[in-house]
């Protein structure tokens, strides 16, 4: 299992899971805020729509569906 933090909360997910999966398993459905402030989450699941983007280890706008979890990763939703 891999342990990471989503908005400060510790989450344990299987090795090889995507960050998007970890965020959903932590109970968050909104990943980012749209231009008008609506909550948004993953749509395409394959790196095309950019709806699942969030901040990973300080890097903003990371596509969480395309990145695998790593121990100690710090993930922040918008």
């Amino acid at each position, binding site marked *: 299992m891999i342990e990471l933090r989503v908005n400060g909360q510790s989450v344990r*997910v*299987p090795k*090889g*899971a*995507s960050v*998007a*999966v970890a965020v*959903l*398993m932590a109970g968050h*459905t*909104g*990943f980012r805020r*749209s*231009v*008008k402030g*609506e*909550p*948004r*989450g*993953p*749509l*395409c*699941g*394959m*790196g*095309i*729509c*950019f*709806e699942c*983007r969030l901040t990973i280890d300080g890097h903003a*706008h990371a596509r969480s*569906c*395309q*990145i*695998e979890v790593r121990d100690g990763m710090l993930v922040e939703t918008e």
Partner: protein
Amino acid sequence: MKRAGVVVVGAGPAGIAAAVRARACGARVTVIDDNAAPGGQIWRRENKGAAAAWIGRLTGVEQIAQARVVAGDPVKRTLLIEMADDAFEIGYESLIIATGARELFLPFPGWTLPGIMGVGGLQALVKAGLPIVGKRIAVAGSGPLLLAAAAYFRREGAQVVILAEQASTIALLRFAGQLVRQPAKLMQAARLRMALLGVDYRRGCWVKRADLAGRLLRLQFNSGAIHEVDYAAIAYGLCPNTELAAALGCRLADGVVFVDDLQRTSVEGIYCAGEPTGIGGVDAALLEGETAGMVAAGQAPLRRDTGKRRGFDKALKTAFTLRRALRELPDASTIVCRCEDVTLEQLQPMTSFREAKLQTRCGMGPCQGRICGAATEFLFGWSAGSVRPPILPARVGTMCKETPE
């Protein structure tokens, strides 16, 4: 600059077959893919059968994962690649574009709510580890992927509360009739129907709107049915990813990359295989990939059988033609461009995608029109227009790595 004989973009079935064949012909081959592991969407996390066999044959092929092509120069024969913390240029003698397809999403009131995903979209997340045991899932939209995905969600322990296909029963029966000429596909369809026994499978049925109901999504169907679900998987078929080919100047015809019998595009040294040349499925993608790999490496191809493939493509299009009623789904305030939150009523006075871009920023966000472009084509008949670099959002530092003219 990094150099390779044959560069393949995309590590799905077409790209893998191309790389394996080109390597067997003695070429120096590099495969570039956006994902963490080869397989593409259809073979995502597959470790048995044809997927494992093909992926296992990639020995001797350089694989660069989690890398995106952001620009290219077909005259210098270079591509500009961006990775998580790095960027580089790669030179090629031959380029094989095997960028696959994405799903078509159509706007309806509530379609931007979290929890509403693509059909392949939700499947990709489940394959990436999302547990769905006991979850209530609605599968809706159009195309053969709906059945395959619904069966998959069921196997993973979810409760598929409804499977809604917009096409009519008659259209689907005609499609099944055509499959008789392809026994393998017919068997596959029969197995899927068995796996879906007991699921409420509706034809001529689609989601009209979605609202939040506590932690659940409340879906209203055109039939009057209402279902509350954890996830809704909704997509209306596939769109070929033609952006890279278009950006490099390859000619498109009817929305797909034009290729000859040897998978050659209109640009010298550039080949294309699989879904960007027309939606044909995994078998056609493998065959085209093998041909592209061999021709790109300077050899004659093994065999050709495009007639069958083209027939399947046409039968798919006819059976799953999207009905006009789906154009009436979005209301004035429904968002069409999700990146820039542009609504239907903002777009209605516009006459082209270009005008919409300039006046409303529709298609100007990070996805660069990959989602709303296909939606506005369906809603208004607009064509997406030219593709210019960077073809994906890129860092300024990446663009600086490009060798000047």
